[in-house]
């Protein structure tokens, strides 16, 4: 698929008008955010610096009672990428899925994180349930969550070098030593 096709198919409206009331409120509260209806789901691209405030706004003002997920994405080798043209894309994206039980709706918030400064605010103080997923994203992508209570590796061994889900971290054979291993695993 060529780039021209993408521009036509994917998400050509840069400033889509939110049909979603939460997204509209987010856009009003955080100018510079961009709304996209991704296959019918409301998605808001927000500034990385506003990450914590966005989560706080969603929790306190918009009744989003659960943060379902915090995910990292690496776009190093993406032939075509679905992102609104009006935002400055970076290599990494951090994606959070919020669910409001009272209003029975979801919203997805995406922030761009550069490879030079792979860090973003932790929202574990607002939603304690993201403790594990933030650790996982740190472990597998090397994105630091500033303010996280216990930012350690969670899936990989503690002495692991590298972050496996980065696209430039090739899957490879790991030598297994049994004798004289300083930290047996």
């Amino acid at each position: 698929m060529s780039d021209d096709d993408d521009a036509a198919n994917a998400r050509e409206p840069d400033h889509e008008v939110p049909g979603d009331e939460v997204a509209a409120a987010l856009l009003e509260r955080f100018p510079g955010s961009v709304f996209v209806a991704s296959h019918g789901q409301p998605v808001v691209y927000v500034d990385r610096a506003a990450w914590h405030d966005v989560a706080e706004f969603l929790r306190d003002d918009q009744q989003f009672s659960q943060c379902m997920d915090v995910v990292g994405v690496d776009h190093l080798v993406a032939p075509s990428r679905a992102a609104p043209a009006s935002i400055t894309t970076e290599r990494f994206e951090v994606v959070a899925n919020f669910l409001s039980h009272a209003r029975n709706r979801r919203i997805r918030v995406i922030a761009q994180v550069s490879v030079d400064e792979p860090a973003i605010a932790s929202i574990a103080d607002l939603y304690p349930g993201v403790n594990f997923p933030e650790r996982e994203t740190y472990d597998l992508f090397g994105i630091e969550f500033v303010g996280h209570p216990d930012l350690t590796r969670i899936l990989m061994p503690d002495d692991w070098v590298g972050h496996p889900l980065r696209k430039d971290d090739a899957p490879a054979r790991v030598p297994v030593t049994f004798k004289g291993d300083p930290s047996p695993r």
Partner: protein
Amino acid sequence: MSDLTNAEARRLEAQTDEGAQELRPLTGDARTQELVLTGGPWPDIDDTMILNMGPQHPSTHGVLRIMLELDGETVLRAKPVIGYLHTGMEKTGEELTYVQGSTNVTRMDYASPLSNELAFSMAVERLLDLELPERATWIRMLLVELNRMSSHLLFQATNGMDLGAVSMMIYGWRERELTLRLLETITGLRMNHNFIRPGGVAADLPDGWQHDVLELCDQVERGVGEYDTLLTENPIWRERTVGVGVITTGEALALGATGPILRSTGFAWDLRKAQPYLAYDDVDFDVIYTENGDVFDRYQIRLYEILESVKIVRQCVERMPAGDYRVQDRKVTPPPRARIDESMEALIHHFKLFTEGFRVPAGETYVAVESPRGEIGCYLVSDGTAKPNRLHIRGPSFYNLQSMDAMVPGGMLADAVAIVSSIDPIMGEVDR
């Protein structure tokens, strides 16, 4: 005996007699002897102790390791340590085409593989904007509910075993085996089915499936009645479970818990009802929820959810629509085997699908379905090629494990086993 001395005879008697191994009454000096412990320094007995449980422990459901801080036998806090089953399935998922993807994700939550396949397939279909034939959605619903039954039956078995009701393990396994056998008849495999694929399901239902399914429904209902009789009013069972591992709605929501854990706190949230997918808004069933949030409630919810699944399965048998079991788009699903012999087009489609796969337009989506353990979500990022740029599965067990923080403190060490069991974590899904 005559040539043995009296003392020698007593010595031999002491060696061979069973009584020789028992504690003898203290006589003489030993009665007043004081035992003095020398050496040291010894730890202050007021100190707490860190106890490591697992990762190799029968009641940790695989390879879960828990660090417990104990004061005497009271648990002050518990920290789950995970990663022992991390096999990089999300990385593997980036190397496999969308056609092969189901084979990979089905191995994550190995007790309910069809829920994984469903979440993944629905995510791919949403990126393709694919509309499924009615029969395909109903077959999916039938399979997922059969899988919910087998998963909850497995829970009943292992939960019973963890708490010492070992006969429960045999009974739970018995009905689960029947369910798996039926799934094998339909999908060809007991587990890791790879049956729900993007575009529909792999094959149509076999002849006479209605009879087999209805027979299973009767058997499972009878089994659930037996478990109910065996455990629900059993005083030993209630002693071990009622009031143990209590969690409130607020804590469950904050810690990201979903599924039976959230529903046990009096919060009736089930994605099948709240945000219906497949044909769940067409069938009649109830959301089971209780008020107390303890181990007993989570046992009860899973027990009665089996009956709700039976209800849905019966409606599937009654109302299964006719038609295609997958979309007839040759760019997504392979042509029938017979067509390959007669049509060049079919041969090319078949070859392209299984070598290169199909391309998915660039985009990202999150699809959530209700697995037996809670919300299983698939976050899929496509970059326009035939392989996903990012495949993330939100495994409910991964989040549910965190709710230990709220349940364990203040309980006894033995309660920790009951609590881990009641969370019903599947480590394949936790570590992926």
